[in-house]
């Protein structure tokens, strides 16, 4: 099933990109550099939602002791780090033509950087233990603490300084961007999410096989 999701979402994303890069009109203020949005927005959206998924999995693992949830955390963390890295780098390259600088001590950028460091902390915490069952518990506790903390960090950093434009798409408000730019953006979000989901499926396959290699059902499936 996984390769079909991958092929489909790659095609979907390619379609959205051709639309967004070639056919959507240039932004009135930012010119053509705004086209980075078709990568930046899906990546920054996923960087946070992947963390939420991890937090839900951590809760499930700690309360009901479902092992699969722990494997999910372990396999999402590196992908989340990758996505956050993409959001950071696309944002900073976007910043060069629009703000004239690649880095600003701005609220959203800083909190994304903190999120990136937290992902790396999760990965290094898990990999420093040889007893995986303990490591699963520790990583879930840390994910939950981070889950409580991320909104606090975001709020406090917002309080500290803001330069970034407000979110272009929110669920509650009417979108503030033109439909000709919006539709390709929605399509690119779906496509990019599909690619990332298939990457997560792949990595969780690796982890399940690694941890359950002695079980007979794994042997049958190999």
């Amino acid at each position, binding site marked *: 099933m996984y390769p079909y999701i991958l092929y489909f979402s790659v095609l979907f994303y390619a379609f959205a990109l051709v639309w967004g890069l070639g056919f959507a009109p240039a932004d009135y203020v930012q010119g053509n550099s705004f086209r980075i949005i078709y990568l930046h927005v899906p990546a920054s959206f996923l960087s946070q939602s992947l963390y939420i998924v991890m937090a839900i999995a951590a809760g499930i693992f700690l309360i009901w002791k479902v092992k699969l949830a722990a494997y999910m955390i372990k396999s999402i963390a590196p992908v989340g780090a990758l996505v956050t890295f993409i959001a950071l780098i696309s944002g900073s390259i976007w910043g060069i033509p629009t703000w004239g600088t690649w880095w600003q001590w701005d609220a959203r950028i800083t909190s994304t950087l*903190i999120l990136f*460091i*937290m992902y*790396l*902390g999760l990965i*290094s*915490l898990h990999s*420093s*233990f040889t007893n995986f069952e*303990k490591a699963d*518990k*520790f990583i879930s*506790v*840390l994910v939950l*603490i*981070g889950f409580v*903390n991320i909104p*606090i*960090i975001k*709020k*406090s*950093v917002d*309080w*500290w300084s803001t330069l970034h434009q407000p979110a272009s798409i929110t669920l509650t408000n009417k979108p503030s961007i033109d439909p000709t730019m919006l539709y390709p953006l929605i399509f690119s979000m779906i496509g990019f999410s599909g690619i990332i989901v298939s990457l997560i499926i792949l990595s969780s396959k690796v982890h399940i096989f690694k941890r359950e290699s002695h079980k007979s059902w794994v042997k049958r499936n190999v």
Partner: protein
Amino acid sequence: MKLIFVEFFKLKMKLRAWLGPILIFLLIIISFPLTVELSSEALNDVFYSILWIASLLTIMVSVESIFLEDYEDGYLEYFYVANNSLFSLIFTKILIYWILIGIPISCLGTFFSINMSDDISSLNIALPSLLISTYIFINLFALGNSLSLNKGSALGALITIPLLFPILILLGKIVLNANFGFEISNLLLLMLGVLLLIIVFIPFIISFIIKTHLE
């Protein structure tokens, strides 16, 4: 009550664990003026941020082995078997660290801040905010170090420091407001509220983590 005496005694006898950090705090405070231009105005602008960062680093260094030694010689196990809970031990340990390290560096920092800015009003900015923030720092670093117990303190710091940013921002806001002559008592109250939450919850989380380590 006996536990407090025992823990106090243990830390007191370990000079390097509490006198060392205080001296490190002093050294950081001294070394900043050497790298900034020696005009007092430039120093006044950044002095408080030096103070916050110095206290953060000091706490980071001092808390790095808060549970390590008790873990290695079996004291944590012993305590768990005897009391069936680790909460009181962890709570007391953090309290003792605050008494032996947090309070001295708060007083030192306040002392220097009076000297630097020629302004007695800094007494009611620096002292309460340092006292509260060091307690919060010790709690959170203890959390990070319990996660990375016997895996090195760098990992603990890596985990903890992102969690501390809101407190640092709050501290910065306090100084900013004080410079503009606004009220700071509401910000201090906010920090006190955070501290109260942390005092209750963090030892619980830490005892769960350490219990897992012992398994």
